[in-house]
């Protein structure tokens, strides 16, 4: 339910939409898309994948996009709201003709804008005219990033035309009070400004062939300039952190050691949150290690159309993030938790990397198109990630036995867990999920959970996952195909013919839920420990590594830090409860920008000075406990 005043406050709790930001790891919430505009943006995004997921392109038009406020998809919506014909678009999708789909979908949105403009200028009353202007402008938003990138002057001209159009519709006032008449001449002129540009660039009969589908106007596509539209995630994407946020358990922290005294770890912590170490769209979209691995764990909500088959899963070797690494296989995997990482090697769902260092480099360079990381960066990332501990669980001893706090059903389930079954090759669950080895055995087995990709394939072996902390990491298996621990028990019971009774399955499930439990799985936010405070404390800790890097005159790693932390600090200010303090945070962020600028100029004295100013201002802010 939306109205002007409330819209402002609702914005902070709105359903999730993702907007590209320049590299900050704090995604912006985006206003909802109209159904046909969403379908168009999705079509362009999916149409750039190799191979094109044509079923998803069709679904983009037939179903509401993920998280849509509308109950119908683009085609049904158009059937209700518009006279624009969709037959040619549907035919192009059915023929899987990429260029034709681009052309028809683009023309369709252009015609819809025209339709709403016509409604606006012919409306009988101001409220109807304003509604049409609003709808037209929301549709225009589907093209806006392309026009802004290719033709800023036109973007500005059209932006003002929309303002003129809305201002000249007239206003009905309330009970006649405050009523203002419409200004037809201004309306017609503003409409012409918009319509002319749309006609020349988006209502084109024969579009130039597109290598990449984008919202660029036709004049840019025809020209020889290499304008690129900044990468954007399509409607339905969700790269926000999981809510509730997983609790981070760091070994040193639990021992009372301050991270600022561990500069290599702190720098690695910063890199884990930095989109700057990646390249391609991940970097531009602010995607970092922590985007998928919230606080060392998982992100159950993460979803990117075309790359995720369900929330919490992603195909990191698809076409989107790094085309050169595209394996052309639609094989998204459920994001694994990194808790207890030093005990869970080998790495990758199939254990293909023995070395965490090699795995990490592969993530940066191949999966996310980053530059080759320096040895220092890899050392730092590993130093940090090797501090990830499992969640404390008072129902379990450190060697994997139940404590008195465990429920009776779990005790009964433990017996089943340790019982050998013929269907498991006379092994028990505990043979692989070894209780005193953190419930894993560092081996890979083909348990039949992977559908063979070709006849005779021997490619289904997956690394034994730990059971610790799993109560909070649903769904399960490499592809997230099983929604609950109970369904995992059922799966084994059926596929391995364990012959468990219903009561036994319930007991075994209770055991798994007990082993997978934690005393405090989530970060507990309250008025004292706010999300912003957590972010502020993290970011100032990251910055503390300047104490080490500045004396070393390590320009490259300083700039990576200042670029990351300054942008994140400013962006995180938008989450502050104390809105009045935001300018102070912006000023603090600028201190870090100044450190970076001085280092770029090799003015080390100025860099030291800005760093000192940052420290004293950050301390003062911290003490005021916002």
């Amino acid at each position, binding site marked *: 339910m939306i109205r002007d005043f409330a819209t402002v406050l609702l914005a902070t709790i709105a359903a999730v939409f993702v907007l590209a930001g320049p590299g900050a790891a704090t995604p912006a919430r985006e206003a909802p898309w109209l159904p046909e505009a969403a379908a168009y943006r999705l079509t362009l995004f999916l149409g750039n994948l190799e191979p094109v997921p044509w079923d998803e392109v069709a679904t983009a038009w037939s179903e509401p996009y993920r998280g849509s406020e509308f109950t119908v998809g683009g085609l049904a919506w158009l059937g209700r709201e518009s006279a624009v014909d969709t037959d040619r678009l549907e035919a192009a999708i059915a023929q899987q003709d990429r260029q034709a789909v681009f052309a028809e979908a683009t023309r369709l949105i252009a015609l819809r804008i025209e339709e709403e403009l016509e409604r606006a200028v012919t409306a009988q009353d101001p409220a109807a005219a304003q509604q049409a202007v609003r709808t037209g402008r929301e549709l225009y938003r589907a093209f806006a990033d392309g026009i802004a990138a290719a033709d800023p002057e036109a973007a500005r001209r059209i932006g003002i035309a929309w303002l003129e159009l809305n201002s000249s519709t007239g206003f009905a006032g*309330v009970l006649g009070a*405050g009523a203002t008449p419409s200004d037809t001449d201004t309306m017609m002129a503003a409409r012409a400004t918009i319509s002319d540009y749309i006609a020349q660039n988006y209502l084109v009969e024969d579009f130039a062939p597109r290598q990449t589908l984008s919202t660029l106007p036709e004049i840019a596509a025809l020209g020889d300039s290499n304008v690129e539209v900044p990468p954007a995630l399509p409607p339905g994407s969700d790269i926000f952190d999981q809510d509730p946020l997983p609790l981070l358990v760091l070994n040193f922290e639990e021992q009372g050691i301050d991270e600022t005294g561990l500069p290599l770890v702190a720098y690695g912590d910063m890199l884990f949150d930095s989109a700057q170490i990646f390249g391609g769209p991940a970097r531009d979209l602010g995607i970092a290690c922590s985007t998928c691995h919230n606080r060392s764990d998982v992100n159950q909500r993460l979803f990117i159309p075309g790359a995720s088959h369900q929330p919490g899963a992603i195909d990191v070797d698809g076409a989107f993030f790094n085309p050169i690494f595209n394996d052309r296989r639609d094989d998204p995997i459920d994001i694994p938790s990194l808790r207890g990482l030093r005990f869970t090697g080998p790495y990758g769902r199939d254990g293909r990397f023995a070395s965490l260092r090699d795995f990490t480099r592969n993530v940066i360079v191949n999966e996310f198109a980053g530059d080759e990381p320096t040895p220092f960066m890899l050392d730092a990332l590993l130093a940090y990630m090797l501090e990830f501990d499992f969640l404390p669980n008072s129902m379990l001893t450190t060697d994997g036995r139940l404590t008195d706090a465990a429920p009776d059903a779990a005790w009964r389930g433990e017996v089943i867990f340790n019982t050998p079954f013929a269907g498991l090759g006379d092994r028990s669950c505990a043979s692989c999920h070894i209780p005193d080895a953190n419930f894993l055995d560092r081996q890979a087995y083909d348990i039949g959970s992977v559908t063979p990709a070709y006849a005779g394939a021997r490619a289904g072996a997956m690394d034994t996952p730990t059971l610790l902390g799993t109560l909070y990491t649903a769904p399960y298996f490499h592809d997230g195909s099983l929604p609950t621990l109970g369904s995992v028990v059922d799966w084994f019971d059926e596929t391995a013919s364990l012959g468990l009774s219903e009561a036994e399955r319930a007991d075994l499930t209770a055991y798994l839920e007990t082993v997978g439990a934690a005393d405090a799985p989530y970060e507990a936010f309250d008025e004292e420990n706010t999300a912003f405070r957590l972010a502020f404390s993290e970011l100032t800790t990251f910055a503390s590594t300047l104490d080490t890097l500045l004396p070393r005159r390590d320009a490259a790693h300083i700039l990576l830090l200042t670029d990351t932390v300054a942008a994140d600090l400013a962006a995180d200010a938008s989450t502050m409860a104390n809105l009045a303090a935001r300018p102070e945070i912006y000023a603090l962020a600028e201190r870090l920008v100044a450190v970076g600028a001085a280092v770029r100029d090799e003015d080390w004295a100025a860099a030291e000075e800005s760093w000192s100013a940052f420290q004293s201002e950050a301390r003062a802010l911290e003490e005021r406990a916002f």
Partner: protein
Amino acid sequence: MMMAGAGAVSLAAPLLAQGTALRIAFIPQENPEKLLGDIEAITGWLAAQIGVPVEGFVTIDHAAAVEALRNGDADISFMGALPFVLAESEIGAVPLLSEVYRGAPSYTGRIFVRRDSGIASLADLRGRDIAFADPISESGYLYPLAEFERAGLIDGPDGAGAFFGRIFFAGGYQQAMQAMAEGLVDAAGASQYADLLLTPDQQADVTWIAESEPIPSHLVIARPGLDADLQGRFVDAMMQLNEPENRDRLRYLYGPDGYVLADSSAYDGVREMARRYGLLR
């Protein structure tokens, strides 16, 4: 959801006969479909609390909601402060509840500019372009404009045209703020919270140079002559939304932090403003 005694919802005319139910008018800003879902959720809950069927319906704007109160199609409506004082004057509408945001039943309007614009005071906006939300918006026009008056830069709304370059009514806070952030205009007049509608990066690039006096918040109002007992039960139910176990339902109602009983005198400033601007006789 459509069980006996539960809420009913429609986009068009009210379904239930007058006197047998409570009819509530809602005013949409964007997507009426989403509104219908929210209305269904809240009217169902209200019906259970009050003990009579509660019907919600969507009107096109404030004016239509006031019209519905006037002709008896609606018993209750959600309403901005300015439309309320007009409805009070014209049809005797009764204030029941005021919305609470961040601890207060009031908010302010501000004049926002880009931080790199070099604009530091209202006087710097002479000859420059500004976007407001809507000509009958309190925080998105009247109150911010009054700050120019207070600064001695304009005498009343009629003087605004001579002071500014161009004045736009962008259609809402979001549109006004975007126009300013994108550089289409030099300033925007909008609610104090309107910069939260910008992206985090844009938020860091904007600041505000003037703030209005407090504006009493939006309200829930009743038509005159509504059955006193029914009205009382409705108010009691709405006040229950302040209880911790019900707070999550507030998101169905424009998302305030809660409600307080309306204090009619708190709207004197709005009445005065409406008179000064020739909106109220």
